[in-house]
């Protein structure tokens, strides 16, 4: 603690840094404390609110599962193999972080819309993206998969490749060495990535609102209530969303803290 105020420069840095922390914490606290618990409870009992929160959780979970299935193998390759064009693949993975999410919505609409090739192909299987839950899922997937892939890649990079080699000499197939050595050792990173991705998916608005205004996910519901009825009416929904996301985020911090203990 004393090291924080060791000299004048550090005191200044502490003041400047605190401004930023306050900037995040103050509005959040303000929102949380503005609504009474009774009001929150009543809001939670509303069919529409519960339905949309449930849909948000569910859609983000499906997106996370899809990203896990394809993203973990991709992350492993990126961590282990050098191949031509790797920089391009890594760049593509990071693109969703830098493009505006409303633009992502437009791009997905142009690719998975009703009249598009993919839209019609999936339509044969009864899968519709525009104004439907699958549209919410792909919007969330697009904007949040980078978090999982990057976390998983870092996790695999931290696993000494020689551990796999030893496993191989002991009789393990590549498949077996992956499941019994690399995957368990990278698991905490992957788990952090999963939680982060899921939380990021929950809060997505821009891409989702363009692809699927209905059925309404929680951020869209919040927006709609604000537009139609004003601040007072939308506040409890905002509070609920913030509380739920904070809980998931605390869970994330707990798992990463556990990871540090493991290393010590």
């Amino acid at each position, binding site marked *: 603690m004393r090291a924080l105020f060791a000299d004048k420069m550090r005191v200044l840095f502490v003041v400047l840094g605190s401004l930023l922390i306050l900037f995040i914490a103050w509005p959040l606290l303000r929102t949380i404390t503005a609504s009474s618990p009774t009001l929150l409870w009543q809001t939670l009992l509303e069919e529409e609110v519960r339905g949309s929160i449930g849909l948000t959780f569910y859609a983000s979970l499906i997106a996370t599962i899809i990203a896990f299935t394809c993203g973990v193998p991709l992350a492993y390759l990126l961590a282990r193999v050098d191949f031509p064009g790797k920089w391009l693949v890594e760049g593509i993975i990071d693109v969703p972080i830098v493009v505006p999410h409303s633009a992502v919505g437009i791009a997905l609409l142009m690719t998975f819309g009703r009249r598009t090739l993919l839209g019609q192909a999936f339509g044969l299987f009864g899968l519709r993206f525009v104004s439907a839950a699958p549209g919410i899922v792909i919007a969330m997937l697009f904007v949040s998969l980078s978090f999982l892939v990057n976390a998983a890649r870092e996790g695999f990079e931290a696993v000494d490749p*020689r551990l796999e*080699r*030893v*496993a*191989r*000499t*002991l009789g*393990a*197939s590549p498949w077996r060495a992956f499941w019994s050595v690399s995957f368990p050792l990278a698991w905490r990173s992957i788990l952090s990535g999963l939680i982060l991705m899921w939380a990021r998916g929950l809060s997505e608005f821009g891409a989702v609102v363009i692809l699927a205004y209905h059925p309404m996910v929680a951020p869209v519901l919040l927006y709609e209530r604000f537009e139609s009825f004003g601040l007072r009416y939308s506040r409890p929904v905002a509070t609920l969303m913030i509380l739920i996301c904070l809980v998931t985020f605390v869970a994330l911090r707990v798992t990463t803290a556990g990871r540090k203990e493991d290393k010590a």
Partner: protein
Amino acid sequence: MKSSGSVQVRDLWVDLGEFHLRQINLDVAAGEYFVVLGPTGAGKTVLLEAVAGLHQPCKGRIMLDGRDVTNVPPERRSIGFVYQDYVLFPHLGVAENIAFGLKLTKMDRATIEERVSGISQLLTIDHLLHRRPGTLSGGEQQRVALARALVVEPRLLLLDEPLSALDPEMREGLQRELERLHRELGTTTIHVTHDFEEAVALGDRIAVVNGGRVVQVGSPEEIFRRPGSEFVARFVGVRNIFRGEIRPGDNGYKVLFLDGMEIAVVTGLTGQAHGSIRPEEIVISREPLRSSARNSFRGRIVNIADRGMLIYVTVHVPPDFTCMITRRSLEEMELREGLEVYIVFKASAVHVF
């Protein structure tokens, strides 16, 4: 115990960008303890990993017991591998680490436990079985790594600088352990090191590698008595190495017996061992010296090699001792070949290994 295998490496080329192997040829007999000696970056680890099947060679063949295994994946070669820094599975306990290879077979639980406990006793780590790898000392971790590799009874054991990460005392203990294990199990072993004394102490034969090539293969004596190239001579260095028997002496000293000579030494070891004395530790005098040094022998100068500032003087006692002196000493003492002199060195100057 499964019979141990012979290894032939034929014209092996491996290219990993940073490290490469060029036209490696090696023959290791079944049951042999073979040491690959070379400086850091010579490609020693790559060679071991190639033999284990962890790198695909661009050219050449690797044969195990006469069977070509060049395209056989590592998990079907039956080769144990131990890295310098142990590389234990950090998410598994010691017992699970050792049992890892056995659990991949169809062996039943009871047999696995029996084998794990057997190898642990052999390596005196049975009291550590419930611990986590991270809580063990370097020496203990290396024993666990050895147990993990040996419990599956490999045909060949590859050791990549297994002693280098240990502190000197541990190193000596584990070196003895490796000797004993090899004696008791007879597993063909290829041991990679940059330490010449380690190579001499353990190796039946030594291959010296440099720049991805094998530059000399021979018995330890051949390597240091008749280095085949300037590189080997430099790498091995000029040194006095003798093999003899250590017996208890008086006043807390021990005595290294060789060819009728008795050299006072300080060591915890007994039995057959090597003693090495650095040329700069030996003092040459024209008269018998009264000094604190325990070892004083009379001999005849048979060779004086001029290396610029420093002069190497070989004194035939027998055996031959090479001593290093300055040009000034040479001139002041008027040393010349054929002259009778005394060589003197402290018991503590003799490194026993």
